[in-house]
């Protein structure tokens, strides 16, 4: 809540709507990586907005997930420059390894595969976003080790 107040204070009086996107980021992180209707309604009440003002924004931006997602999201870029460097094979390799197609989550709820458009890492292609960070110059071996890393982290925190 303090964090939200801090964000609102950046804008002029009465312009707290500007805090919506930053607050949705916080909400998504706090509430399991996605935005349920309840979460969005709660954000609306905090920022004194109508719920529809929150829904229309949450549905516009591709980083907001409106359905539950796995604990680890692999967001693989597939736009031109990544395609030139073999992003198709990366998507296929993740499918072969984890058995999930883009948009799907593994049965154990650990991994979600998502294909995304250009993330601004074209010179380090192929790449994906995983959580807050970029994983670049991807190879099959790198994917294997990222999966193992996630599994270890999940096991350690359970």
């Amino acid at each position: 809540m303090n964090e939200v107040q801090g964000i609102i204070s950046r804008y002029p009086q009465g312009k707290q709507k500007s805090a919506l996107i930053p607050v949705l980021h916080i909400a998504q992180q706090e509430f399991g990586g996605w935005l349920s209707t309840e979460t969005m309604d709660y954000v609306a009440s905090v920022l004194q907005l109508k719920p529809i003002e929150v829904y229309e924004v949450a549905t516009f931006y591709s980083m907001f997930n409106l359905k539950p997602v796995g604990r680890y999201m692999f967001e693989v870029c597939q736009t031109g420059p990544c395609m030139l460097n073999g992003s198709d094979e990366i998507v296929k390799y993740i499918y072969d390894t984890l058995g999930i197609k883009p948009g799907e989550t593994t049965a154990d709820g650990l991994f979600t595969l998502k294909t995304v458009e250009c993330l601004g890492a074209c010179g380090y292609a192929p790449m994906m976003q995983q959580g807050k960070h970029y994983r670049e110059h991807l190879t099959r071996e790198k994917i294997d080790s990222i999966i193992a890393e996630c599994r270890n982290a999940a096991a350690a925190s359970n």
Partner: protein
Amino acid sequence: MGRKLLLEKAHVENIRLYDVYRQQGGYRSVEKALKSMSPDQVTEEVKKSGLRGRGGAGFPTGMKWSFLAKPEGVPRYLVVNADESEPGTFKDRYLMEFIPHLLIEGMITASFALGSNTSFIYIRGEYAWIVDILEQAIAEAKHNGWLGKNILGSGFDCEIYVQRGAGAYICGEETALIESLEGKRGNPRIKPPFPAVKGLWDCPTVVNNVETIAAVVPIINEGGEEYAKIGVGKSTGTKLISACGNLNKPGVYEIDMTISVEEFIYSDEYCGGIPNGKKLKACIPGGSSVPILPANLLLKTAKGETRYMNYESLADGGFATGSMMGSGGFIVMDDTQCVVKHTYTLARFYRHESCGQCSPCREGTGWMEKILLNLENGKGKMSDIDLLWDIQRKIEGNTICPLGDAAAWPVAAAIRHFRDEFEWHVTNPEDALRRNYGIGHYADPIHVPVG
């Protein structure tokens, strides 16, 4: 070896930290501006420098600043555009990641010139870790008296905040960016009114690219006239180029705009040529929106003159035989790559990123994507190629914002220069599925690395 003004110090150890940056001469431009210049004098230097916006459109920055309306009692805003989402472009990220204080320094000086007491960096949401880097730099700058109230005793107050987007290329368009910063969907506004009159919260606003604002630092330090001596013609100063695709050394390079395209691609100082002994087939020299050029037209203009890495030379020949400098996103394709497939990924990108307000853009991008996918998969007809051409023509110029044009140009240029490759996909459907059409006659005849 070209001159470096922005990235010269980017690899000094710990340059991200304030103390190191300051030791290396950082924040001198703020001292100079706030202690010895008026806001108008700062703008005047920027005008003299000939600096053109580095976000893609190349509009003269000093002129943009002088258009800013200054009604009494109304706040004015500087917003830095760090949305960087044009495929092929990753230069602003590099600058912010390695030398964040350069952007903060440029912003303080620019805010002083514009009279902005609260300035924002609007950064694409995916660059989450860079938000931390920037906020750290802002905190350090504030701690050392470069931000806050009455900076250096000049009476000028300034705060800088970082605002994260959430995944939408369209928010790089300046009016969509402003909408987004106001907490709305990123739907571009109809202009006029321009942001210089009615921008953020209806107040006069300047939106500038990250690299543009960073360039203010050397301009103030060295003087606009000195800056204008670098480069050629109306392409003054240095430009960051983010090179990617099939290159031995992809990455971000600062160039003064006098080198040739050939040197940029093949010399070891820059991209180091095409990997695995392959040849250059084509290149999109200024971000995904600008026309693709086959190797022969990339290295030489239609008149047979050497093509250089600057605004005028890249545009030589117009859209018939030239391209654009754009955002500096330089995408190179080797002779095994398929132009149809690449164009398809771009069409998909624009369909995904269209905000949906204008029917030609919303519907047209969807149709182009579908037709290109059919062609790529060997399911297209000859008439599809003409249909594609028609659709792109009907989008261009008929939309609220330039995203429509940006979606149309790559398709138009691909058909213009690579029509036989599209036709080959129709006449050889099985091969189209199995392998790419990489034919020799586009490929660069000069494969000996220069200098």
